[in-house]
């Protein structure tokens, strides 16, 4: 029947998941912890002694950030006392299960690295732990994008590059924070290559961000209409401004500003991302 309907069926069939601010914080903290650990590990494995001093700060920061992430993960559950049930099975077909097990291993390694970094312990053990923890840190930085794109939710389900974007965002945050630390610690040599790396990672971030924006279906376009300020803020504050700072005014004085911008853009992007199904469902 072609007649207009007095009561049309709902446009969006799916129900938005009960994920709100705590999941956005979890998304930020897991990316930041994974990024910090991965960047610190690479610098520790490939850099010289001055660089290793900076990477030790990265290890020392990654674990506390991960603790905040774990708290958010638990309180977000409908029944937080059953958080251990997450480890009841391992399901490779469930990104959340893969992520949980990666977080379990990563948290343990990150704790040991934290302990070694703040104590005058050393060298070779940290190298092994950095190498062993690196793959798990990368999975922790990556899996949440796949977790979101592997849903039936409008907006998320069409974001095929979301895993790549969140992973690159994690890397950008890790590099930016360690760049700020290197600048504050007057480790000019370390700051110099981190600044160069940040420029190229932000270029990569921008390319994937644009790809993600362009590939979307009508729901993603709807999300752009629903959150124009958030999307532009992410692109402008999180990528364009720090890129401009690193290119046009490189130096210890501006590194902290660039790092703050990268973090701010990451916060904005994750906030917008979490809200997409809720906003589209409400329209």
């Amino acid at each position, binding site marked *: *029947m072609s*007649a207009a309907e007095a009561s049309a*069926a709902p446009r969006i*069939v799916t129900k938005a998941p009960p994920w709100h601010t705590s999941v956005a914080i979890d998304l930020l903290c897991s990316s930041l912890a994974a990024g910090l650990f991965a960047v610190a590990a690479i610098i520790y494995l490939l850099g010289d002694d001055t660089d290793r001093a900076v990477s030790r700060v990265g290890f020392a920061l990654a674990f506390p950030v991960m603790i905040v992430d774990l708290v958010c993960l638990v309180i977000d*559950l*409908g*029944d937080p006392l059953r958080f251990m049930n997450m480890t*009841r099975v391992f399901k490779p077909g469930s990104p959340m299960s893969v992520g949980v097990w990666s977080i379990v291993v990563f948290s343990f390694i990150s704790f040991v690295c934290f302990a070694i970094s703040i104590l005058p312990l050393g060298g070779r053990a940290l190298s092994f732990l950095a190498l062993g923890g690196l793959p798990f840190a990368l999975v922790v930085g990556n899996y949440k994008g796949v*977790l979101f794109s592997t849903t039936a939710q409008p907006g998320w389900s069409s974001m095929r590059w979301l*895993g790549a974007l969140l992973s690159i965002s994690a890397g950008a945050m890790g590099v930016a924070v360690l760049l700020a630390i290197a600048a504050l610690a007057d480790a000019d040599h370390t700051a110099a290559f981190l600044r160069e790396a940040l420029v190229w990672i932000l270029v990569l971030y921008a390319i994937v961000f644009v790809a993600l924006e362009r590939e979307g279906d009508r729901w993603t376009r709807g999300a752009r209409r629903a959150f124009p300020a958030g999307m532009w803020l992410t692109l402008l504050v999180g990528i364009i401004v720090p890129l401009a700072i690193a290119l046009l005014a490189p130096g210890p004085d501006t590194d902290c500003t660039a790092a703050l911008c990268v973090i701010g853009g990451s916060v904005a992007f994750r906030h917008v991302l979490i809200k997409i199904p809720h906003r589209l469902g409400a329209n």
Partner: protein
Amino acid sequence: MANLLRDLLYPFTRPTALASRRPTGFFTDTTLCIGCKACEVACKQWNQLPSDGFNFTADSYDNTAQLSATTWRHVTFIEQFPRDAAAPPSPPDLNLDLTSLMMEAQNGRWLMMSDVCKHCSAAPCQMACPTGAIIHNEFNDVYIQNDICNGCGYCVAACPFGVISRSAFDGHAHKCTLCYDRQRDDLIPACAKACPTESIRFGPLDELRAHAARRLEEVKTRGFKGARLYGDRATDTYSDLGAFFLLLDEPSRYGLPDNPDTPQRHMIADYIRGAAGTLLWIAILAIAVIIHVRS
């Protein structure tokens, strides 16, 4: 303390799996549904689900609105009337006779469908569940083990039909169990038992499919050319459904996705894209470090 320890360890025990039995499901023939909501009431009564309150949606006689953690059967009302149609006669002017009743179809029609969990053969909620709380039971129906579920909400996000919800009462996910307890006692589900027109049929899936095919032919010969079966067989993007439907219009008119997609189909490719992005930024950083160390 002993109770706490038992509660923590109990989910990790592994009971023996029950032997598979003949797969069962629902066939909902929407052409027979009269919107009486007896199925909704029977479901709530048997499963001891609380009332949703007397809410007024203001756009339909359907005031339940949707499936939820406390509504496992929902009769959807779709009123298809032309917006420019003449106003129906007010009650005092009603001169109901056989001719006016027969003419109703020209002015518009009501579609009604008793919606329920689809009990998908390859269920995205079951695949997504990280705790193993969602399983296919011995009747191949999708079942949530509420003593295991921790309310992570991933099944809510994964369901393309918007069936599962997380309860604000206990924080766990809930949906139709296909009256698992009744089936184990060789009883048919409460909704099918209560349906006065046999719009909801319960039984072995192969028998239901054969019946549905015959019924579709019958409806088509009566002039409903748009009639179709929904979910009786798998598509390129989605598995067959354990609860399938005979519809008179496009699925989206009933609040069903026209072409449901299994979210996990894209998972491997998404991981590969993610890994590619990861390797690129790692390579950038590693090259920057190596160049500076050598210089």
